C-alpha cells in the first residue's frame, strides 16, 4: 500500500483504503509535470548531446547518415585523448578550480560587506555609490579588459602574475564584486532592521549583529551570490585568454579551444567530453543549492 493512503476499518470489519491526496490534485500535479517536460527537455538537451557525442567514435560523429541523437556503442577514446594528449585534468581543471574558489571567496566576502554598508549605513553619497556600483557592473568585459591589461602589466613588472592564475584571481573580482554587491543590496533590504536593533539591545556590536543575525538570515542571498560567482568565474573566457597563454596555466575555457579546435578541424568528440566534464561541477552545485538560488534571486522582487 502506498505511503499516502491510510487504512480504516469499516462497519463491516473490512479494511478500507482512503487516499489522503484527492484525485483532482494528483491530476493537477501530473498536468504540471507534463507541462514542465518541454522545459526540462530544452534545459537538458545540450548536456545530453554533449554526453552522447563524447561517447561516439569519430567515424560515427562524422557520419551524417546516422542520427546524431544516440550512439551505437560507448567509446572512451575522447576521454582518453583528453587525459593523454592535453593538460585538461592535470592543469586546466585544477587551475579553473583554484581560480573559482579563490575568486568566489574574495568577491562574496567583499561584496557582502559592501552590500551591507550600502543597504544599512547612512552616509553622504551612499545612493550615488550604490548606483556607481551598478553602473560598474554594466561595463562590458570586452571594454574593461583593455585598461586591466595595463594594470596587470604594471603589477607584472614587480610580481610576475601574467601567465599565472593570479592574474585572474586579481581581475575576476572587478566584475564579480559589483554584481555580488548589487545582488545582496536588494537582499539585505528585505531583512527587517528591527531584528538587527533587537541584537543591539542584547548587546551586539554592529559587526556582531551582522555575523550573528543578518548573515544567517541572508543565507539564500549569499548562496545565490556564491553560485553566480562560481558560474561566472568557471566559464569566463576573455580575461583568461588575454592574460594567460602559457599552456599549463590555462583554464578549461581557453585550454579546450586551444587544443581541440585546430583551424577547421574540430576534435568534436574530445570537445564534447571536455565540455561535459567541465559542466558537471556546475550542474552538481546547482542541483544541491537550487532552492537557495531561487529564493535568493526572487527576494526583493516584491515587498
Amino acid at each position, binding site marked *: 500500500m502506498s505511503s499516502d493512503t491510510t487504512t480504516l476499518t469499516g462497519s463491516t470489519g473490512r479494511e478500507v483504503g482512503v487516499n489522503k491526496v484527492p484525485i483532482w490534485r494528483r491530476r493537477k500535479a501530473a498536468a504540471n509535470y507534463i507541462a514542465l517536460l518541454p522545459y526540462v527537455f530544452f534545459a537538458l538537451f545540450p548536456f545530453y548531446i554533449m554526453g552522447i557525442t563524447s561517447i561516439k567514435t569519430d*567515424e560515427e560523429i562524422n557520419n*551524417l*547518415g546516422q542520427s546524431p541523437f544516440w550512439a551505437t556503442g560507448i567509446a572512451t577514446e575522447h576521454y582518453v585523448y583528453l587525459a593523454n594528449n592535453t593538460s585538461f585534468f592535470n592543469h586546466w581543471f585544477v587551475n579553473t578550480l583554484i581560480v573559482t574558489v579563490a575568486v568566489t571567496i574574495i568577491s562574496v566576502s567583499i561584496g557582502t560587506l559592501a552590500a551591507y554598508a550600502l543597504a544599512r549605513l547612512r552616509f553622504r553619497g551612499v545612493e550615488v555609490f550604490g548606483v556607481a556600483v551598478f553602473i560598474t557592473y554594466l561595463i562590458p568585459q570586452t571594454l574593461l579588459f583593455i585598461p586591466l591589461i595595463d594594470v596587470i602589466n604594471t603589477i607584472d613588472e614587480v610580481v610576475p602574475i601574467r601567465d599565472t592564475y593570479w592574474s585572474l584571481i586579481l581581475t575576476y573580482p572587478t566584475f564579480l564584486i559589483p554584481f555580488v554587491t548589487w545582488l545582496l543590496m536588494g537582499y539585505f533590504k528585505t531583512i527587517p532592521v528591527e531584528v538587527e536593533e533587537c541584537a543591539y539591545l542584547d548587546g551586539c556590536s554592529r559587526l556582531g549583529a551582522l555575523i550573528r543575525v543578518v548573515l544567517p538570515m541572508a543565507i539564500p542571498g549569499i548562496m545565490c551570490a556564491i553560485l553566480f560567482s562560481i558560474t561566472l568565474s568557471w566559464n569566463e573566457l576573455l580575461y583568461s585568454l588575454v592574460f594567460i597563454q602559457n599552456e599549463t596555466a590555462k583554464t578549461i575555457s581557453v585550454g579546450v579551444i*586551444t587544443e581541440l579546435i585546430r*583551424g577547421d578541424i574540430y576534435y568534436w568528440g574530445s570537445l564534447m567530453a571536455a565540455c561535459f566534464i567541465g559542466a558537471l561541477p556546475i550542474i552538481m552545485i546547482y542541483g544541491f543549492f537550487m532552492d537557495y538560488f531561487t529564493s535568493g534571486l526572487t527576494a526583493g522582487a516584491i515587498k
Partner: protein
Amino acid sequence: MVSKTKLTQKNETLSTGAPSRRKFLKGTAAASGGLAGILAAGIAPATAQTRELKMLTNSHFVPASDVELERQLAEFGKAAGVKTRLDRVAHLQLPAVLAGEVQGQKGHDLVSVGNSNPHLYSKHLESVDDLYEKIGKAGGGWTDGTVGKGSDGHHKAIPWFFISFPLALRTDLIASINEDIPDTWDDVHRVGTKLKAKGHPLGIQIAHSVDSNMILRGIMWSYGAKLVDEDSKTVAVNSKESVEAFKFIAALYNDAMTDEVLAWDDRNNNVCLNSGKCSMILNPISAYRSAIKAGTKDKAGNLVHHSIQHVMPPTGPAGRHMAASFNNMGVWKFAKEKELAKEFMAFHFAKDNAEKHLTASKGYNQPVLAGNALHPLYASNSKYYFAPFIGWYTHAIGWPGVPTAAVQTVVDQYLLPDAVATVAVGKASAEDAVKKLESQMKRIYRRAAKREG
C-alpha cells in the same frame, strides 16, 4: 655622519609619532602582497630571470607542426643560451590576444600575424626589410610580394606560409553521373546541379566563416570583379562584373546547393564531404586529413579519403583566381628580445628547417618561397599534386591591392558573404546588393584613410 635628509625623515617620524593607519595598511599590503605573490607564483621577479624568447601563434591544423616549431625554438634557444617558449591559442582567438598585447605594449617577442595584420599593426611591428630580402634571395624569391607589408610600405613581417583553397571533390560521386572533374565554374554549376538532384549537393559556405570570405572572393575575381583597386584605397566593387558574379553565385546556390550553407562554419563542409552527402567543396586539405584521421568509410565500407581528390580552383570568364589565408611572422617593437627574435626567424626560414616544418604540417603549410614550392612532399601523394601550382592562381585578400587593415575590417564584418546571401535567398537583386556593399565598404575605407592620415 648622518645626512640631512635622513635627519629630516627621522624628525618627521618622531614628530608624528606612530605611522598613520593609512600608511600602515598601505605598507603592510604592499609588503605582504608582493612577497605572497612571489611565493605563491613560485617565480622569481622579472628582473632576476634569465633571457627568454617567447613566440605566439595559433594552434595548427596538424599538432605535429606545432611540435616541430617548438623543437626548432628549443634548438635555437640551446644554441643561443636562452630559454624559449611557444604559446598557442585557437586561430579565431588570436586577434584578441594580439590586440591585448598591443594595448599593453607587452607580451611575446615573435608573433604570428595573419593576412592584413602586418598592415593593421604596422606601427607596432619591427621593419624586417633586410631579413625579407635575405630570406627571399636564399629561398628563390617570394611568390607574392604584397604579403607582410605594413602601411608605410616596409615589410613588417616575414611571409610564412599560405593555406590554399583547391576544389576538393568526391571522385566516386562525380563518376557515378558519368561526368569528368570540373574545370570551370560553369562545369561546377552543371555537375553540381546534377549531383544535387541525386542528393549530393555542392557545399560552399555563404556564411560568417573564413572559408566563405576566401571562396566568394575567388569567384568574384574569376568573374573579373574586384572589391578594391590596385591602389588598395579605392573601392571598386560596384561593377557589372560584380553583378554577374553575384548572379552566378545565386544560381549556384539555388541549383546546386542546399540552404544549410547559409549557417555553416569552417568545419561543416569537411563533414559534409566526408559523410558522402556533399560532392564538392572548396577547402584546404582538412576534409582529406580528417577522413584519414577518423578512418571514415562510405556506405560500401570503403575508406572515404581514397575517393577525395584536390584539383585547381575552377576558372571563370576572367581566369582562375582564388584567395588564401596567409600567415606571417613578425616581431613586436615592444618585444624584449627583438634581435633574438630576428635571429630565430633567419634560423627557421633556413632551407632545412623550413622544409622540416613544411613536412611536419603534412602539406598544409604551402611555401611562399619559390624554392620550396616543389617540395618532394607534394609529389609523394597524388592528393597533393595541385599544391606546387595553386600559388600561381592564389592571392591575398585585398588583391589586386595589398592586404590592408581596411580589407581586414571588410573581411571581419563578413560584408561579402552577407551581400551574396541576400541575393542567393532572393531578398535583394544583385545590383542592389552590390550597391549596398559598395557603400558599406566606402565607409570603412574612409575611416581607414582618416586613421592613416
